[in-house]
């Protein structure tokens, strides 16, 4: 397969890695066009910590899917790390998801029959790393999130906070451009939630680009920029200095 995806993005902090221009997404559940995203203009630069907020129905999830390359825009353009996502086919989308996006989900989304390292290793497996290399890196990442002594455990043997830490380690596996977290503390108690936010802060400090989709102001407080969505449009953006 021709891997036309630009995988090595070598850009300095402050350069835009994600650019959306006049991006629209419509669904056609019936005869009527349902406009979920309307003319989204969005630029995110390397190293930013961005929170996307909005009430339900505001198009948050759709925007998340769009950023995560799980879906293609109906109109407009979306460029991620130099790749025009709207032009990519299914295989290329898979490739770009695997290499540029690190997903962290609300419900952790670990695979039950795999243990901690094996879960962390999945993205590297699909990028074609050798088993030896990827397993070593997975173990490294596990200790980085404080689960070095739990590598052989199954997700069902871990607490929610620990599971989410595995998910973060997994998101870091391919050193993605963006860590895309969807309500990362939504299923956690406040203490574990705080833990996770601390880890995200630390990653941000290390220069990672983080996008969090949430409706929780406490989480948004960690971000440098908060994007408020309403009815499929960017209503306002607030910049904060942390």
């Amino acid at each position, binding site marked *: 397969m021709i891997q036309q995806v630009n995988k090595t993005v070598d850009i300095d902090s402050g350069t835009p890695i994600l650019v959306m221009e006049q991006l629209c997404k419509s669904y056609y559940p019936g005869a009527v066009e349902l406009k979920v995203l309307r003319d989204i203009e969005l630029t995110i630069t390397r190293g930013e910590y961005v929170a996307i907020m909005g009430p339900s129905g505001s198009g948050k999830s759709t925007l998340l*899917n769009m950023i*995560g390359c*799980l*879906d293609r825009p109906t109109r407009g353009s979306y460029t991620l790390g130099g790749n025009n996502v709207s032009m990519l086919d*299914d*295989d290329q989308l*898979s*490739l770009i*998801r*695997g*290499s540029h*996006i690190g*997903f962290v*989900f609300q419900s952790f*989304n*670990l*695979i*039950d*029959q*795999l243990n901690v390292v094996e879960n962390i290793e*999945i*993205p590297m*497996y*699909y*990028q*074609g790393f*050798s*088993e030896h290399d990827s397993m070593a890196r997975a173990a490294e990442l596990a200790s980085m999130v404080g689960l070095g002594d739990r590598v052989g455990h199954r997700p069902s043997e871990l607490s929610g906070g620990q599971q989410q830490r595995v998910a973060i380690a*997994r998101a870091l596996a*391919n050193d993605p451009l963006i860590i895309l977290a969807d309500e990362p503390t939504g299923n956690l108690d406040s203490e574990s939630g705080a833990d996770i936010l601390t880890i995200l802060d630390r990653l941000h400090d290390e220069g990672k680009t983080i996008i969090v989709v949430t409706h929780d102001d406490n989480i948004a407080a960690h971000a440098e920029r908060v994007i408020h969505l309403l009815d499929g449009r960017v209503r306002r953006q607030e910049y904060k200095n942390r």
Partner: protein
Amino acid sequence: MLLFRLKRTFKLGIKSLWMHRLRSTLTTLGIIFGVSSVIAMLAIGEGASQQAQEQIARLGSLNIIVKTVKPLDEQESTTQEMSMNQYGLTYTDAERFRNSIPDVQVVVPSRRVSQQVRYRNRKVSTEILGTVPWYTDISPIQMLRGRFLSSVDMHHKQGICVVDEQVVTELFAFDDPLGQDIKIASDYYRVVGIVNHDEPVKGGNGLSGNVSAAPSGGGANVGTIYIPLTTVKDRFGEVSIQVSGSSGANIEKVELQEIVVKVSSVNEVLRTRGVLETLLERFHKKNDYQVVVPLELLQQAKDFARIFSIVLGSIAAISLLVGGIGIMNIMLATVSERTREIGIRRALGAKKRDIVLQFLSETLLLTLTGGILGIVLGTAIPFFVTYFSKHPTTVTGGSLVLAFGISAAVGITFGLYPAYRAANMDPIESLRHE
């Protein structure tokens, strides 16, 4: 690289299947039974066909066998008194065959009598075959020691005999049989040769069909003793008396029990058979003969074996198909159960192809494991069938390859659709799936 990837995919497959051991085992059972029944049934069919073909081949494919059969008695009522019943093949028949059919190579007339044979204090009941020196041309027997009957023996009606191995083991414990005299009926015969044992063909179509002229020895004859035909005619006569119940005796006169005609090539067999039958019809008004053509029997046996194999094979193939459908069913259930896993993998960079491969490898693992276990079971079953029922079976390499190939094909066929379904799920939808 690809191989490496495949290895990992299969490892993952094993892990997933191991998670649902019971389900995997039950699913595999369908294939195991399917494959083993294909192999076992083909083995039983093949065994039967080989046995039949071997027996027929022993009769000789160039031979045409004409046998005496007792005609259906139309005047059974007259048996209150002594009646003389002459029927069957005659020396004249043999002479006619020899003289009037150009393609005939050899004509072998023979008589069979069942007799007690004695050597010192040992006794055994055997079949006495009165025949001619060229009997060896139409029979698969081999000389082991000494010589067979000769034309000099024929001419002088010598009291000599050739015995087969079975007779040797029964009669002569430690003595060398050659040159010894054995007693058959009231006369002594000198043993001049030993031949190997020619297993009489079972099933009524063989050379040794029970002939009415022979006293019914209960079928417990051991071995065969070959004596010059002329000697047999001289010493045993052609008339036999059968005491039939309370109502007196039945006297029968039969000259020959059998005439075997051998032609020079396979192409001549059917034509010669026609000529023989025309001749026989003209001179035998009573229906007292039967013509057996081993070549035809062989053809029939092969046709029958083929049909038999097709029928057995189809039944077994259907069971494999059912097994395959079972697998597909389970895989579809597995796919929908693991929708979320599929979504996760897709989000983490799995291409559709990766998902297809993952599920296909699981199906293949199930069917190939089933295939291997099925081969083991399928080769064991014929073994036990042979052991317990004495019915011959032959497991052919071809049937193993066939069964394994079918199980792999079933795996791919019935695995592709579930795998395809899995790969084409919408990642967003499947991530949301609970």
